[in-house]
């Protein structure tokens, strides 16, 4: 049932359809367009029981569980899932080796289901220490043992899970982002989600194709955007969900999928490495997973608390492939896919308060990744299932019109579940590296993972976010990365084209700096002077460039065009079309003045193998 919803204070006469008339006027010149006014817009609106933002493992597990409960208990529930990617699976990537624990609970018969992508069991797991020229076997914590797990493409797994959800009657709308929340009249609760506006030009004026975002009024809203989600960020700030918790910390994962020569392919083999090319002031390591069909997933994770602003995660990964250990595997093969995404490293101490009036955070939006295992899918799925159970119960309760539902039962359920105890056991491993340095952390982790297993009375804490760990460029050494040598290593733009990313051109730049000319100047000054233009090196899609400003005449127009504003002869160029939605910039920019917001839905990468 669709109805027009007008803002409270504005009651237009029914005959007035001035907004609709826009579509019938002939195309107007850009200068004649009206600026979009968020306070003065008519939105289509629809009522659902549960609205889930994000069609990833957490969101889809929640949706499927809700439909299972509908069958078990008989009360209908309408579930809508919004996904900013152009199709389910397009924006997700990971190693990945999945622990089927949550899947076994959600879909006990999954092995008999048609088309499931868990066709490649992990057959071995080893760890190696790399030096510049050699590689040596190394003991690994028991968490990294992969017996019983499956090597998959998370994109394909998610796409399959999406098909299962749709077959159960879940409505999934790819190409539409959950851009903002709908709040109760007094602002204390969430009553649903608004999708993003489409058809705005770069200056926020309405084009002929303008359509306002649609409103989904939901009794329960589940936010499942993955690590560092944009809506999650807004809700965590508004409802102070992080009070009393450690800040969330992150790593950046950069990966490629290769088809390798049959002679070197060993189905199901999983390897992790530490050491080269990372220096001991960086936490991280690589993975090498032999997937099904002769393909290999290879990638590098670097903790975003790295101090040297000259580091380029992309280039570290490219040069790593020339190490004899990787070269012998990848040589003669073909690179099929590339992608990058940030992942949570904060673990147990960084889990925020999980619920707010009217909804909850599930999956990596909350942050349930088990860092030593480097697995989060099983925890994400389980959190989705528990949230679904709490939501279903909450729907059964009488909620007054305009009041938000109570999802506190979900937090209780998570604390009683194996997700909580699993994360609690490994809570000190990753923080020990930050606290005791690389070698201290390695030793501590060895003891804690093998012997004490987290049964210590203390908990190590992180006190600052990743961006604050960045040292000034003058205190660090620039890094001399080797140039790309195809067919083994590539330049970044070739890799970006492999992601299939694109965004419609004439739309507002979705990477938002603080407004105004002064803020822009300040950003350029500090980033170029103090941090050697960190974003230009860190972004895995070459979105940010600190380049020479145009000659003087352009500078006179600075007042008109904030994008031309600069400092010391340099300006910031944002190639937002390249963005692959990894969120690194929002997390790592030293000046913490970049806000990642959702672009028009359907844009972004088109992962299918990752």
């Amino acid at each position, binding site marked *: 049932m669709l109805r027009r919803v007008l803002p409270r204070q504005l009651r237009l006469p029914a005959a007035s359809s001035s907004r609709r008339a826009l579509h019938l006027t002939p195309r107007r010149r850009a200068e004649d367009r009206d600026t979009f006014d968020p306070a003065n817009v008519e939105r289509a609106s629809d009522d659902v029981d549960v609205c889930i933002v994000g069609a990833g493992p957490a969101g889809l597990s929640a949706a499927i569980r809700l439909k299972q409960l509908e069958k078990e208990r008989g009360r209908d529930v309408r579930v809508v899932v919004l996904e900013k990617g152009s199709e389910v699976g397009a924006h997700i990537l990971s190693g990945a080796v999945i622990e089927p624990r949550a899947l076994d609970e959600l879909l006990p018969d999954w092995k008999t289901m048609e088309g499931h992508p868990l066709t490649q069991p992990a057959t071995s797991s080893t760890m190696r220490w790399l030096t510049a020229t050699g590689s040596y076997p190394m003991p690994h914590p028991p968490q990294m043992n992969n017996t019983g797990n499956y090597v998959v493409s998370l994109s394909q797994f998610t796409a399959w899970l999406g098909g299962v959800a749709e077959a159960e009657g879940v409505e999934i709308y790819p190409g539409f982002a959950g851009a903002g929340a709908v709040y109760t009249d007094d602002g204390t609760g969430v009553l649903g989600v608004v999708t993003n506006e*489409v058809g705005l030009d770069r200056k926020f004026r309405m084009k002929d194709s303008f359509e306002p975002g*649609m409103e989904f009024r939901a009794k329960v809203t589940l936010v499942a955007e993955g690590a560092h989600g944009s809506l999650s960020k807004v809700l965590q700030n508004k409802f102070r969900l992080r009070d009393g918790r450690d800040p969330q910390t992150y790593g950046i994962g950069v990966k490629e999928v290769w088809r390798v020569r049959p002679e070197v392919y060993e189905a199901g083999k999983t390897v992790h490495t530490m050491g080269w090319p990372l220096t001991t002031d960086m936490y991280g390591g690589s993975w090498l997973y032999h997937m099904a069909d002769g393909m290999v997933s290879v990638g590098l994770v670097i903790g975003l608390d790295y101090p040297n602003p000259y580091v380029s995660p992309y280039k570290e990964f490219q040069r790593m492939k020339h190490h004899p250990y990787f070269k012998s595997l990848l040589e003669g093969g073909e690179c099929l896919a590339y992608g990058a995404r940030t992942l949570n490293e904060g673990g147990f101490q960084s889990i925020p308060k999980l619920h707010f009036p009217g909804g909850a955070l599930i999956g990596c939006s909350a942050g349930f990744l088990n860092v030593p295992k480097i697995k989060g899918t099983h925890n994400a799925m389980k959190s989705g299932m528990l949230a679904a159970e709490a939501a279903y119960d909450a729907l059964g309760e009488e909620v007054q019109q305009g009041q938000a539902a109570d999802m506190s039962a979900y937090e209780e359920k998570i604390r009683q579940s194996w997700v909580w105890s699993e994360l609690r056991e490994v809570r000190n491993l990753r923080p020990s590296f930050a606290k005791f340095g690389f070698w201290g952390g390695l030793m501590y982790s060895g003891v804690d993972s093998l012997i004490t297993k987290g049964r210590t009375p203390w908990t190590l804490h992180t006190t600052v976010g990743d961006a604050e760990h960045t040292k000034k460029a003058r205190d660090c050494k620039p890094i001399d990365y080797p140039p790309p040598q195809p067919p083994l290593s590539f330049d970044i733009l070739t890799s970006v*084209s*492999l992601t*299939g990313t694109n965004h419609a051109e004439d739309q507002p730049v979705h990477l938002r700096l603080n407004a105004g000319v002064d803020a822009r100047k300040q950003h350029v000054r500090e980033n170029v002077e103090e941090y050697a233009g960190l974003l230009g090196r860190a972004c895995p899609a070459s979105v940010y460039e600190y380049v020479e400003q145009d000659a003087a005449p352009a500078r006179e127009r600075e007042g008109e065009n904030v994008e031309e504003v600069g400092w010391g002869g340099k300006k910031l160029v944002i190639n937002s079309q390249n963005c692959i939605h990894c969120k690194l910039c929002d997390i790592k920019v030293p000046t913490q003045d970049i806000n990642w917001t959702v672009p028009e839905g359907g844009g972004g990468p*088109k992962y299918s193998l990752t």
Partner: protein
Amino acid sequence: MRPTPRSLLRILVPVKRCVDYAVKIRVNAQQTGVETNVKHSMNPFDEIAVEEAVRLRERLKDAVKGITAVTIGPSKAQETLRTALAMGADDAVHVETPEAAIVEPLAVAKLLRAVMDKKGPYDLVILGKQAIDDDAGQTGQMLAGLLGCAQATFASKLDVDVGAGTADVTREIDGGLEQVRVKLPAIVTADLRLNEPRYASLPNIMKAKKKPLEKLKPEDLGVDITPRLQMLKVTEPPKRVGGQKVDNVDELIAKLKKAGVLPGAA
């Protein structure tokens, strides 16, 4: 086609599901075609065709009786029809072909003619000028040939006079722009500058689920879709080799002679 009462226009919009334009194409391992396990979308020129049909209805209002979208393809092609319905088509027809079947432009044209016989009559067929996967650019023209009716291809502007039963089309040709007037029924193929397609808004996508969608098979329409062409091999283009710099004109001439581009000994 049987002539229709001049007062109401029925529009048919054939659409095709192709590999999405932003995806990097790879040749498949068997060298018989491209990797198809990637994102697909509606052919961009067909999007323009759907948009034009919807705009025609907005301009001519009641003079347009209905817009039917039709696609020929495997079961997933249904998503393309849903997009067309969400953009403003009224109903849809899906001619379902086997997953691995190759349907050539001639077979498509024959199937479209059969659909028009079965569900028609239609006064105007608007489709994209070419599909971005095969770049054939033949279907519209072949359909006009089979039907014996007018065609106006590479349209960058379309105006229909329903009362007179004609359409004025501006065509993009090598020399510039050509304006033709065709008698309806006619086939129009859409070029890039015809319009900028609208977004399928979420409310419309939800409404589209309720619009009628009929499924047919080639056998039901009595058309044999066996390919007339055999694909021998598909390979990537040769890798571009680096060029060379020369120091002076004499060296350039010597190199060109050596490469056999200029006559004479090097």
